[in-house]
């Protein structure tokens, strides 16, 4: 059956015009609900701008009830379009708990697995990689990072080899200490890493001076850890009401304000808040949609929050 489209009836014209008129509205709605994605500079692959950390919150050992809670958290995270889950052998049972959760979730959505090598955990780079694959119940991890730059040169060499062999997809480095930024910058300059992970949040903006511009310049994806400054940002604002500009960026709560501030930076690829509270995960994932502040508003946000 064919349809003659050459004949334009009034009804068809009006329907077409209405559809065209609705386009901006539909586009805006799609923009409001579509997850904010960021490209990994080294490949162009896009990942959701909100990820999930596992430090403390997923280190629950073998306590069944707490594992079930982590499962609910992970399920909600993936259902709401979350991507990166970041862990480390330093986080006790966290890698095992993540793997346990993923084993029980059928649809992994946009999952992007990120973990680390950490010398004190024992074993060489390859052994740690195998151990993490086993704990994550995964045949291939997306990103392996050198935790806190410990034995970075040695691990990086082996991680690049693992990447070349197709065992992992990306290589990165991490720190959560401002004092290590010099060493971080040195590696970012001297090695072809894909990711750099460091602390960046509305109260700790040290990375804006050097690491974020360097990452943008070198084409390195940035994972912002501690986006809530270990709950410090919430303590800082206390019970203060949301400023008027929160509505402009579609932030319904402080968590979304803080996360949107972080992922609005053009050099940031992904923020990785950690939580064990389902309602908080729901709030965090709300930051993955809607408008983001521009540079001017971001500066104002930082100033206003600092002034609280």
């Amino acid at each position, binding site marked *: 059956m064919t349809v003659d489209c050459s004949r334009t009836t009034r009804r068809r014209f009006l329907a077409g015009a209405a559809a065209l008129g609705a386009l901006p509205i539909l586009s805006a709605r799609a923009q409001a609900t579509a997850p904010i994605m960021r490209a990994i500079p080294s490949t162009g692959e896009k990942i959701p701008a909100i990820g999930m950390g596992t*430090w*403390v*919150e997923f*280190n*629950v*050992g*073998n*306590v069944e*009830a*707490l594992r079930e809670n982590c499962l609910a958290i992970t399920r909600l995270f993936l259902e709401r379009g979350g991507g990166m889950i970041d862990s480390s052998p*330093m*986080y*006790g*049972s966290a890698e*095992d708990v993540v793997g346990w959760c993923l084993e029980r979730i059928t649809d992994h959505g946009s999952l992007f697995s990120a973990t680390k090598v950490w010398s*004190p*955990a024992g074993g060489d780079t390859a052994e740690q990689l195998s151990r993490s694959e086993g704990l994550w119940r995964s045949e291939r991890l997306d990103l392996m990072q050198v935790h806190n730059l410990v034995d970075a040169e040695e691990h990086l060499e082996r991680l690049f080899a693992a990447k070349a062999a197709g065992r992992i997809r990306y290589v990165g480095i991490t720190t959560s200490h401002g004092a290590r930024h010099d060493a971080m910058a040195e590696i970012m300059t001297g090695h072809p890493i894909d990711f750099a992970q460091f602390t960046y949040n509305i109260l700790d903006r040290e990375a804006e001076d050097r690491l974020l511009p360097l990452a943008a310049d070198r084409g390195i994806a940035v994972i912002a850890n501690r986006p809530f400054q*270990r709950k410090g940002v919430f303590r800082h604002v206390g019970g203060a009401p949301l400023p008027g500009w929160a509505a402009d960026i579609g932030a319904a709560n402080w968590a979304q304000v803080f996360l949107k501030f972080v992922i609005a930076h053009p050099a940031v690829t992904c923020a990785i808040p950690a939580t*064990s509270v389902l309602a908080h995960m729901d709030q965090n994932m709300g930051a993955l949609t809607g408008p983001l502040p521009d540079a001017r508003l971001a500066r104002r946000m930082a100033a206003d929050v600092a002034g609280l």
Partner: protein
Amino acid sequence: MTELPYSVEVLTATLAAFNTTWWPVVAVGFASTLWLPFANSDRHARWMLFQAAGTAAVVGGPFWLGTMAALDFMAPVWGGLWLLQAAALLLIGWRGGLDFTGRGLRGASLVIVAVGALVYPILFQLETGAAGLGVPLAGSAPEPTAIVLIGLLLGARGRRMPAVLLIPALWAGVAAFNGYLLGLFTPWLVAVTLLAAVAARIAARQNEDDTVGEERS
């Protein structure tokens, strides 16, 4: 690092799991601690040290190297320290290296043992709101066991004391730091009892010196 890799909620849930899984060992450890105040320190000195060695071994083995190893990357270090403590107590007990016959500090010693065995778990429960068995118990968990050891050693004399007091004293620092990181006050009780024990020891020595001085004058 200025944060422990686990939360208070996870700690209490893990303690509950540990106390449930290892209940015979936990029960024996706790009961043997309650025996200490009633032990005849003249005749049972060696057994008191063996009891202490046993509880230190439980803290080092099932607690740190077993249960907590899944949560804390420092567990092998802490487990090793407690096993060393157990070995030291066992060795010194075997050789009869400590003398519990002094009566001067017996009262203070028993008070500190009672703090470790009874007061510590109650305070911990009140502070954390831990449900059921989610509390550390003397004879199997490090902090109350360290307090009991400090109390026990306060009533002892001997030149090998430093060898068995070193790790409980060190634990006062570890517990205080961990308490600070978790935002808990109860673990500081180890340091408080250590300071109280040192103060009691100094006061007792002062009294002895004064008595000797009076006798000579």
